[in-house]
């Protein structure tokens, strides 16, 4: 419950943030909503001698809907995202997923950027962003760079972000077709036993495109290209669903914990993916 001491900084701009990160390297961490970092500090699982509160850094809390992309600032909270009616119209899967994350209090504070940058495989947004083929914008001492969500996650808590970089925004191509975020959890606020993000498109020949990613079934989110490919060109009938589930099971690598043993998690993953595809298809 009692975090170790730290120095607190509240810079007014990104240059100030980067300067502190450069000075202190991995001894410094940015604080967004604080709802993963502070719990870890309270358990002394994270030691952060230099904490950089991002709340006064401007320009990180906007949701911009462009003609072909959405740009979500890293400090947009889950509740900002849920409340944005225009966003719900163009990318409804974001709202559907955000409502399955944590609880009201946590959603007022927790941010999209913190969720995707955290690196905990339990977070829901990383898989969602892989499904949507999002791009993460990182800024560091040498300027900005973009990393695909599908390339960002290396292992639990290990991402492509360098110590001196800050994730400033997520950009998403406007999603097409039907969508679903389906999550099995033990209770409100729990990380998924298994969750699936699905976007699927339909034409006169059946399924024309499908994107599938899974949450908390490996030490990273899993974008299952093969599962999506198994649906394309089919009428998303039972055989296609079975093929997609089989392909997904081939890509995940769950571990046993108090959410259940490996065999159970694989079984649940199959059930959840099937439900997600069926719901997404019904909306396509």
């Amino acid at each position, binding site marked *: 419950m009692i975090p170790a001491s730290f120095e*607190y900084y509240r810079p007014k701009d990104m240059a100030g943030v980067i300067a502190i990160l450069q000075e202190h390297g991995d001894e410094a961490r940015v604080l967004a909503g604080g709802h993963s970092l502070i719990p870890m500090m309270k358990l002394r699982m994270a030691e952060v001698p230099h904490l950089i509160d991002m709340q006064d850094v401007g320009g990180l809390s906007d949701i911009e809907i462009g003609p072909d992309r959405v740009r979500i600032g890293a400090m947009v909270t889950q509740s900002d995202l849920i409340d944005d009616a225009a966003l719900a119209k163009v990318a409804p899967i974001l709202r559907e997923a955000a409502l399955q994350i944590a609880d009201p*209090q946590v959603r007022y504070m927790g941010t999209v950027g913190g969720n995707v940058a955290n690196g905990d495989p339990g977070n829901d947004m990383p898989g969602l962003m892989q499904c949507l083929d999002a791009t993460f914008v990182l800024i560091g001492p040498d300027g900005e760079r973009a990393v695909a969500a599908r390339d960002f996650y290396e292992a639990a808590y290990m991402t492509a972000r360098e110590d001196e970089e800050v994730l400033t925004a997520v950009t998403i191509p406007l999603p097409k077709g039907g969508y679903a975020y389906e999550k099995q959890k033990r209770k409100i606020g729990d990380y998924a036993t298994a969750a699936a993000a699905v976007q699927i498109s339909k034409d006169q020949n059946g399924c024309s495109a499908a994107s599938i990613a899974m949450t908390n079934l490996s030490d990273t989110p899993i974008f299952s290209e093969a599962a999506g490919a198994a649906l394309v060109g089919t009428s998303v009938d039972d055989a296609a669903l079975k093929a997609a589930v089989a392909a997904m099971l081939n890509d995940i690598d769950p571990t046993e914990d108090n959410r259940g043993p490996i065999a159970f998690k694989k079984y649940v993953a199959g059930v959840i993916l099937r439900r997600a595809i069926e719901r997404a298809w019904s909306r396509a």
Partner: protein
Amino acid sequence: MSKKMHITLTVNGKEEEFLAEPRELLIYTLRERLNITGPHIGCDTSHCGACTVTINGKSVKSCTLFSAQANGKEITTIEGIGGPDDLHPLQSAFKEHHGLQCGFCTPGMITRAAKLLQENPNPTEAEIRFGMAGNICRCTGYQNIIKSIQAAAAEMNAAKEAAE
């Protein structure tokens, strides 16, 4: 030990100034520094919501926020929602409908419910359950908390209509 910070908070309308280490969590500032002991601590993993307060219009778990982060902000706790001689409709309704037993979750519950009813003055039962999902109760089984919030919503809506 890190350097102490000068922090100013407005708590229940009153300005409070003090020096604190950056690691001081808001719940401890409220309870131990300011003797505002309505908000409680029921866990160390940000689940229970017994520490819920309102900060600049948001329901926040004050165990998961450093007071340094709240510097300059307005905070409302159960003590600022109503007093013994001036109960908020939610407080009356929790009393009337037996929405509490041990009372440990109640300050957080009512503070959260006040914000919920501000956002959604006519919630369905399902919306109340979902909107209160960040607050755990060991005693009531939630049923009477739902009834209390429904009754308070009806009361507040009637009062609002009468005023119009």
